[in-house]
Structure formats: structure tokens, C-alpha cells
């Protein structure tokens, strides 16, 4: 699987899936395959990024993504440090660029950033010498999530092309959806999105997806079903009349899986709201690969860190 990848990685930053070629996506997935084995060894560490410094700059709270990056960095022997919004200078009124320039002065090699505003990682990438990895910017992109989703699908189905993937939930406010749509359509999968009209952006079809108006329609014949989190603490609350009604219409239960492919896999980027978008019987059921996604997230992030920490042509 790996031998034939003729593509070479030349990017300094990973800002989104939109700008990646299918070959580059495949290279990340193939590289992740090799890193999976590191996580299965008795000594889960390789010396590859020894002496490199990675800064995790999280302006939005995150447990899963941040710890996944942290473990990936540690398994590659990088030194890492974490900045979170609360308790950092940002809370004291420092601008993003000033924070970044101060970090730059400490000469990190890579910066992993999550920010509530779309484009924040791009701004940093322009201002800083360090490589930048987008760990989620507003409702724009979350490239490593899409890559780990694709990796998980490929592990189960052996391919991405030709699969029917249903993505259900709050399509409007989800960066996970946007990165996944870019990735899956580039790799030749057929994507159907479904959700309440209040959570469905106008013109989403232009990204090359079909829109289904009911859960049953989206699930029919699906090889992969991705459930999205309803952000109860944020916009999600306003867009639906009640949690009960949402679950009635779009919550995934065993009974509603009936129309899907026999070997369907159920995914969720986490954190799950049991009884809102997904029933426990499905989340913990035989088709669920939700915890595998978390495991694969580490391999995929190791692959991204490895590829981005290479020497770039102009400095070589």
C-alpha cells in the first residue's frame, strides 16, 4: 500500500483539506499506517522529532484533540508545551499576533492551533516561521479530524472511493463536516448530509454533496454513518425546538439503522450527547467504531507532525 505513493510532502503547514491533493491525502494515510505500529509496541516512542519543540495553542477548550496531539508529540520524542486560553496572556487582552510573535521568539518548530475564528491558523502561518497545524478554526476546517475519519474508514472498508457516507446533524456549525466533505469527495466517496433545515447551510450542494431531508433517506444504503454533535452549550440550542424532538427526528437508534449497508460503520467525532444525536445502544453497539477513531487519531497526528517537520526545499 505504501510503496507506490509517488507523492512527496512539501507543505510547511496543514491548514485545511481543501488545498490538499488526493495524492497528499493518501500519503498522510499511508504514513499513519506505519505509525500505528509504534502505538502497539512495548516502548511506544521513537526518537524522530528529538530536539523539536511543538506548541499546542488552544484558544478553545478541547480534551480529545489536545491530548491526542500531546500523545502524538510525545511518541515522536518532541518537546511540547501547552497554552490554553484561560490563564494565558490572551485572557489579559494580548492580540493573537502578539501572542504568536512572543512564541516565535522562543523558536518552536511547529504550532498546533485551535481558535474560535476561521482563518486564525492561516494568519499565524503567514506571520510565523514555524509550521502551523490547524486543530479546528471556527466552523471552517478541522483537517486532522477528517484525516483520522478517513483513516478509520479505510481500515474497515479498504478504500474510500465509491462508498456512500451519510453525515447527520448540525451541518451549519461543524468544521468537522467541511473538512470531511472536502476529503471524501476528493477521494471519490458519495456524501449525503442530513439535518434540520435550521442547521443546513444554503447552497451546501455546491460542495458536491447530496442533501437528504430525513434520517431514513440519508441512512439508506450507507456504508458509513457519521453523527455530529449537537452543540447544546452553543448555537445548537437555538436551532431546535427541543432535544426530545431532535432525537425523535434525527437521533440514531438501532431500528433506524435498518436501511443501511450490512457492514455499516457508525462514527462520531466526540464528545457524544447520548440520547440527543445517538442512542447508547448504537454508540456502544457492534457497528460503532467511535473509540477506534480516537486511537487512530494519534497515528494520523503522528504522521502529520512527521511530514511537516521535514526539511523544506528552500532551506535544505
Amino acid at each position, binding site marked *: 500500500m*505504501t*510503496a507506490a*505513493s509517488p507523492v*512527496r*510532502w*512539501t507543505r510547511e503547514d496543514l491548514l485545511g483539506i481543501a488545498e490538499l491533493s488526493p495524492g497528499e491525502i493518501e*500519503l498522510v494515510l*499511508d*504514513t499513519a*499506517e*506505519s*505509525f500505528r*505500529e*509504534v502505538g502497539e*509496541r*512495548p*516502548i511506544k*516512542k*521513537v*526518537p*524522530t522529532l528529538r530536539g523539536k519543540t511543538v506548541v499546542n495553542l488552544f484558544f478553545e477548550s478541547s480534551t480529545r484533540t489536545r491530548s491526542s496531539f500531546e500523545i502524538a508529540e510525545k511518541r*515522536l520524542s518532541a518537546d511540547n508545551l501547552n497554552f490554553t486560553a484561560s490563564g494565558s496572556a490572551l485572557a489579559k487582552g494580548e492580540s493573537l499576533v502578539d501572542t504568536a510573535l512572543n512564541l516565535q521568539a522562543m523558536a518552536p518548530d511547529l504550532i498546533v492551533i485551535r481558535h474560535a475564528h476561521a482563518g486564525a491558523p492561516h494568519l499565524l502561518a503567514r506571520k510565523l516561521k514555524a509550521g502551523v497545524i490547524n486543530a479546528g478554526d471556527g466552523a471552517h476546517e478541522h483537517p486532522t479530524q477528517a484525516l483520522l475519519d478517513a483513516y478509520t474508514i479505510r481500515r474497515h472498508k479498504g478504500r474510500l472511493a465509491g462508498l456512500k457516507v451519510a453525515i447527520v446533524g448540525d451541518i451549519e456549525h461543524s468544521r468537522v463536516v467541511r473538512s470531511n466533505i472536502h476529503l471524501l469527495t476528493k477521494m471519490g466517496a458519495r456524501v449525503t448530509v442530513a439535518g434540520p433545515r435550521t442547521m443546513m447551510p444554503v447552497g451546501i450542494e455546491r460542495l458536491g454533496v447530496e442533501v437528504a431531508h430525513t434520517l431514513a433517506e440519508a441512512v439508506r444504503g450507507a456504508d458509513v454513518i457519521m453523527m455530529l454533535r449537537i452543540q447544546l452549550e452553543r448555537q445548537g440550542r437555538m436551532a431546535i425546538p427541543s432535544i426530545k424532538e431532535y432525537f425523535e427526528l434525527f437521533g440514531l437508534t438501532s431500528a433506524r439503522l435498518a436501511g443501511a449497508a450490512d457492514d455499516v460503520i457508525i462514527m462520531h467525532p466526540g464528545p457524544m450527547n447520548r440520547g440527543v444525536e445517538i442512542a447508547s445502544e448504537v454508540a456502544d453497539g457492534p457497528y460503532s467504531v467511535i473509540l477506534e477513531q480516537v486511537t487512530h487519531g494519534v497515528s494520523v497526528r503522528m504522521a502529520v507532525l*512527521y*511530514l511537516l*517537520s*521535514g*526539511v*523544506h*526545499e528552500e532551506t*535544505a
Partner: protein
Amino acid sequence: MAPDLTPKTTILDAEQMARAIRRMAGEISERNRGVSDLMLVGIRTRGVPLAEAIEAEIERMEGHAVPLGALDITLYRDDLSMVAPQPLVKGTHLPGPLDGRVVVLCDDVLFTGRTVRAALDHLVDYGRPRSVQLAVLIDRGHRELPIQADFVGKTVPTARDELIEVCFPQTDGTEQQVRILERAAR
């Protein structure tokens, strides 16, 4: 073969290469008084078909199979900050625990010794072999580290800028052979 390289001499043809591998297999089982604790581990890329060929010979002579593994040393290289772009990582596969085993590392060409250094670092992350030995098809000199092979197919004096090309049917789709390539004058 890169376009600016031209073959200068053939060091081993298919028959000579087979004979060298047969002799190395014999030396390995003789030195270890049998092959019961042995594990052959090829360093990617061309150490792997070499390990397979040695294993086939040992199996023919001793009558039972020896476990085979493949080591990808990319993540342990000391020149990652000097090469661009990042080399492909193809993965390591070992058939079982190393503890108490006699591991014979196999590689096609022994040159600076840096690959072997990386492979040793990699191996100890998997366990504690009883001993590690080194088998190479070609020893071409120019060591940069204090590393020597235990089993050598052929020692070949070379100039530093010459290239040794080892071909196996599995990796190169051609008949097995070893040649010296010269850089064309530009």
C-alpha cells in the same frame, strides 16, 4: 537507476550471488550451532529479500524455518534534519518478542554504518535480544562508526562517490545481481 549513473562492473552475477548467500547461511548456522533461537531481520528495503534468501537456504540445510522480520529504520535516522522531503515510512514487522533471541540483522550494503546504528536503536525498543549479529551481502568500506559485520557476502573496495546497486527480483523486478555504478562526468 538514476539517469546520471552508468554501470561500471558487475561484482556478483545471479549465480555468484546465490552462492554467496548460501555460504552466509551456512556460516550463520555454524556460528550459532544450529538455528533454534535465531531470528532473521531484514533492514528495509533490500535487507528484506536478503533475509528471505538466507532463510530459504537455512531452511533447506537445517530442515526447519527461521522466523523472519522487517525493520524500517526511517524514524531512527540521524539525518532527518538534512534530507528533504521526509522519506516514506514503510513500517516494521517482527514475528515475535526479541527477548532471549539471537537476532541476525541483514542488509544489502554496509557503508557508513549509520543505518546499522539506527537499526540497533530500533531493535532495543522492542526488547532485549541475547545477541545481535550483522549479515551484509556487500561490505564496501568507508565506515563512519565503529561497526563491523559478522557475515559478509563479498568485500568490495570502492571509491566514496561510486554507488553499489543490489538487485533482487522482489524489489527491482530484475534478475539478482550486484553492480558498481559510476556517476557520469558532468
